[in-house]
């Protein structure tokens, strides 16, 4: 039993860190967030070159075949860099869903080009209810696989070639240029991950073979999102500690003052605790342990609150500088808020945990 990284995991993490620092420095993030879609084909090609677009997928579809722990380490680094564009949406969300729900033919058709960096994809889940619980889905596909209705908060849809539409009676792969499909931007806080509303009118879709794969894909995507959040928290902590060491007031660095030190200490505690939770969730998903769903909910619950709090503390320590557009912290703060609600916030996941461990407790049966 060893809850640390192996040498090859450390190598993967270090090379990812170097890659993102080189290809996606914060100046590039700022350039991309001013564009229409926050997407850049050159960065995308390099992600594919690294094998990142196929990291966890089977080699028979052109993937690299690594595990979920490796995925988490990669996402921690892309989160640290605040990588804009559809990487998370395409690879983690849509890729995992096809991998878990598609037939071998569908994987050849949809997953292989994702692995090779040839296509981008998204997942349309939320509806006007904005509920992350599948029982609230209303969109229904007709018997011949035609979709009519609306989806909201669909990430990176404008640059997606394929959109996986989750209806209450199945998951459907829809060509983004298919008839009856229209997109409209939903401008929000996070400038690096754009969202769209999606209108479908008799739009044809291809039903994925195994919709029962949805929860597993959601679990993987949720854990990967938490990893991204941990990377963001780590970056906010690093920026804040650096600032506290250099910014002087009363003739000394503000990091000398305990009120400031304690904010930083709490950022450290919250970041490390989130990291412990997501590493375990990744391992549990990889091994398909009995508590995997609970482990994912624990990680998302904790990190949803922690990433917001870490952002608050970081900006507070930066004072007025932290409130400026020029300072990078607000970019992370925006992403943290978007990620907090994505796949369910802390309240949502606490209820999940309660269902898994309070309702199933042996005492519940006794009193029922």
């Amino acid at each position, binding site marked *: 039993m060893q809850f640390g990284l192996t040498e090859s995991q450390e190598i993967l993490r270090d090379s990812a860190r170097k890659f993102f620092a080189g290809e996606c420095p914060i100046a590039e993030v700022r350039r991309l967030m001013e564009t229409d879609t926050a997407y850049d084909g050159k960065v995308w090609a390099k992600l594919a070159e690294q094998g990142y677009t196929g990291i966890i997928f089977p080699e028979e579809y052109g993937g690299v075949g690594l595990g979920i722990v490796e995925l988490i380490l990669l996402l921690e680094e892309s989160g640290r860099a605040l990588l804009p564009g559809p990487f998370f949406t395409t690879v983690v969300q849509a890729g995992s869903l096809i991998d878990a729900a598609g037939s071998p033919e569908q994987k050849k058709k949809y997953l292989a080009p994702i692995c090779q960096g040839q296509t981008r994809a998204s997942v349309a889940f939320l509806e006007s209810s904005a509920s992350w619980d599948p029982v609230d889905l209303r969109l229904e596909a007709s018997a011949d696989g035609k979709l009519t209705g609306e989806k909201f908060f669909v990430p990176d849809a404008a640059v997606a070639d394929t959109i996986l539409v989750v209806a209450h009676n199945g998951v459907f792969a829809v060509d983004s240029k298919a008839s009856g499909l229209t997109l409209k931007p939903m401008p929000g806080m996070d400038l690096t991950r754009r969202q769209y509303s999606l209108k479908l009118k008799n739009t044809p879709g291809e039903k994925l073979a195994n919709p029962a794969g949805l929860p597993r894909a959601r679990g993987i995507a949720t854990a990967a999102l938490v990893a991204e959040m941990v990377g963001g928290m780590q970056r906010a902590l690093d920026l804040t500690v650096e600032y506290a060491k250099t910014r002087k007031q009363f003739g000394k660095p503000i990091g000398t003052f305990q009120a400031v030190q304690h904010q930083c200490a709490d950022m450290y505690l919250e970041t490390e605790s989130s990291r412990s939770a997501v590493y375990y969730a990744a391992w549990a998903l990889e*091994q398909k342990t009995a508590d995997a769903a609970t482990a994912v909910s624990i990680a998302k619950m904790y990190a949803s609150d922690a990433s917001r709090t870490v952002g608050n503390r970081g900006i507070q320590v930066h004072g007025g500088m932290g409130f400026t557009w020029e300072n990078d912290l607000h970019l992370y703060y925006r992403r943290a808020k978007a990620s907090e609600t994505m796949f369910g916030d802390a309240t949502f996941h606490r209820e999940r945990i309660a269902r898994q461990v309070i309702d199933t407790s042996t005492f519940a049966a006794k009193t029922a």
Partner: protein
Amino acid sequence: MDLNLSTDEQKFQDELRSWLETNVPREWEHAREQSLDERFEFHRKWQRQLFEGGWAGISWPKEYGGRGASLMQQVIFWQEMARAGAPQMANVLGLGLIGPTIIAFGTEEQKKRYLRNILNADEIWCQGFSEPNAGSDLAGLQMDARLDGDHYVVNGQKVWTSYGWIADWCEVVVRTDAAAAKHKGLTVMLVDMKSPGIDVRPLRQMTGETEFNEVFFRDVRIPVANVVGKVNQGWDVAIGTLMHERGSFGAGLQIIYKRNMDRLTELAHSTQRNGAPAAKDLIIRQKLAQCYAEIEIMRLNQMRAFSRISATGVPGPEGSIQKIFWSELNQRFQQVAQELLGPYGQLSAEADEAIDNGTWSYGYLRSRGNTIEAGTSEIQRNIIGHFVLGLPRSY
């Protein structure tokens, strides 16, 4: 990362699990009318039973009575104890702090003399660090030690000494060079609590108990052979002890926390709120889930820390997050218990209507001390700020 058990670890876990199944006392939760001594003797007996079964000091060297197993097996031990709902062991400070300090800094004679008796609970230990004028600023301690032949003659006072009332031995930090700089003139010594000149007085806590003590030293003679580490370099030894206190000590607590969580879950199902079991109340569920998750994260943080220790050999300053985490978590947990139990939560053991013999009112009051004992939350945050994050010293 590989959380699967190795063949050895699996064998260890299987063996321990079946041993615990036959040996853990059933329905052992104490009646509150039991005195502190009665309860202590129960835990001492349990520790002996563990020792005789070969389960005390999992990662301590075999030649001193330990099992000679890995640190990760120690982690498995705590998890299994928690899983089995087993009582904690009696010699808390000996096992958690003083033993590891003697293993790291002690002489061969000291290891032979003390370690086995820590494991079998024949000798109970306390820790004489804090003084009336040296709390958070520990290095400011004043207990005076003067060399007289082959003994030190020690005068002064220690305070907040947990287990002082029952301890046979004490690890003290004393000042052996009054002229040296604050951190430089300190020495760690092991003192027999039956030595003439030691006066242990009870210190009543807000819980009403006298779990800890004031210990007065008047011309107490401590043999030079009882110095741990080097004379005037006691600060390093003391910090070593404190690293264990902050870092690894909390790991044993998951035994208690899991037990408390299970019991509170049970109570949530049997307590009525708004015409239904409290466990169905949406807000209570949120709070219980938060507690459950935090207890799990505490366990995971500790596992990660132990993996790091087993790679590097020593606990580091990042152990301070464990101390903050377990202490603040317990305060939040006890408050949730109070909310669930309402006025019943406040009943003491004397009340016929008390739930669990007043455990919950005691637990609430006792948890108030958690963020103060073993280094305040403020000191832990200072340590993280300076030693982990590299911020300038604030004092």
